[in-house]
């Protein structure tokens, strides 16, 4: 119980830090802290495989991708010369929505209802032993037998993402903001050639 409260405090604080930090790098560090606490919380939920996956995929892959983009975009003059955040006109409705939603939630969960009660698929055991609930063997058996179709759909999603990213940001990406701007750029280039400029 005390572990839950400590981890929850870390997660809430780092989430708030993430969305309020001025520079994106600080947000990234806060998000990293959040993911570490979340992985620890997955461990307390007997999900050891997903805790490791969380660390590898999120902290290792996705956050590094964010870091690369931040480093890439911040190399020149400050690219994020954005105006003030939209805090003033959105803050009050957002806070009201949160309060209403959480009030509804605590009301609905006054007594935790269990409408369905599926039969357990595996046995509980201490984290780290083989073939207990949430271990790699348990997860893999479920993934490759009962849930093979979602696994294949995962492969499809990843392939679509890879193709989309290559099309969007690849070396030869034919990105044109609009037809008019493309014509304008073409015309300027032609005039420059006619002028004989370099």
């Amino acid at each position: 119980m005390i572990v839950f409260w400590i981890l929850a405090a870390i997660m809430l604080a780092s989430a708030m830090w993430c969305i309020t930090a001025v520079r994106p790098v600080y947000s990234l560090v806060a998000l990293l802290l959040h993911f570490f606490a979340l992985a620890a919380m997955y461990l307390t939920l007997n999900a050891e495989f997903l805790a490791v996956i969380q660390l590898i995929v999120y902290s290792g892959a996705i956050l590094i991708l964010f870091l690369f983009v931040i480093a890439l975009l911040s190399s020149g003059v400050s690219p994020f010369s954005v105006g003030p955040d939209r805090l003033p006109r959105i803050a009050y409705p957002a806070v009201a929505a949160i309060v209403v939603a959480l009030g509804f939630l605590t009301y609905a969960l006054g007594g935790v209802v269990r409408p369905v009660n599926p039969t357990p698929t595996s046995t509980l055991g201490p984290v780290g032993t083989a073939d207990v609930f949430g271990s790699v063997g348990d997860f893999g058996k479920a993934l490759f037998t009962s849930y093979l179709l979602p696994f294949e759909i995962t492969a499809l999603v990843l392939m679509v993402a890879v193709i989309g990213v290559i099309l969007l940001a690849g070396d030869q990406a034919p990105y044109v903001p609009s037809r008019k701007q493309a014509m304008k750029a073409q015309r300027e280039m032609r005039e420059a050639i006619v002028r004989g400029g370099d």
Partner: protein
Amino acid sequence: MDVMAVPVGYYVSLSAVIFFIGVAGVLVRRNPLVMLMSIELMFNAANLLFLAFARAWVHNAGHIFAFLVITVAAAEAAIGLAIVVTVFRSNKHVDVDDVATMKG
């Protein structure tokens, strides 16, 4: 099925609060990178809920679905960052309020 050390309702409340922090981040911030990070926060709140209920029912369908969500989040982050890079290439600065070329 045994009794969890922490009731499921606590996890639900924590997940809801983190989800709404993510929503607030998307609504309030104008930096597209921070908005994408807030979306990641929301994904993770959903994942925490999946794992909490999987643990409550000792049923690993929640684990499978959390795995699926992680995959989708990875794909979303890659595509979102590619869009940010593309917009930065053409506009030289990134402000989500100025990006109206996708309106069609």
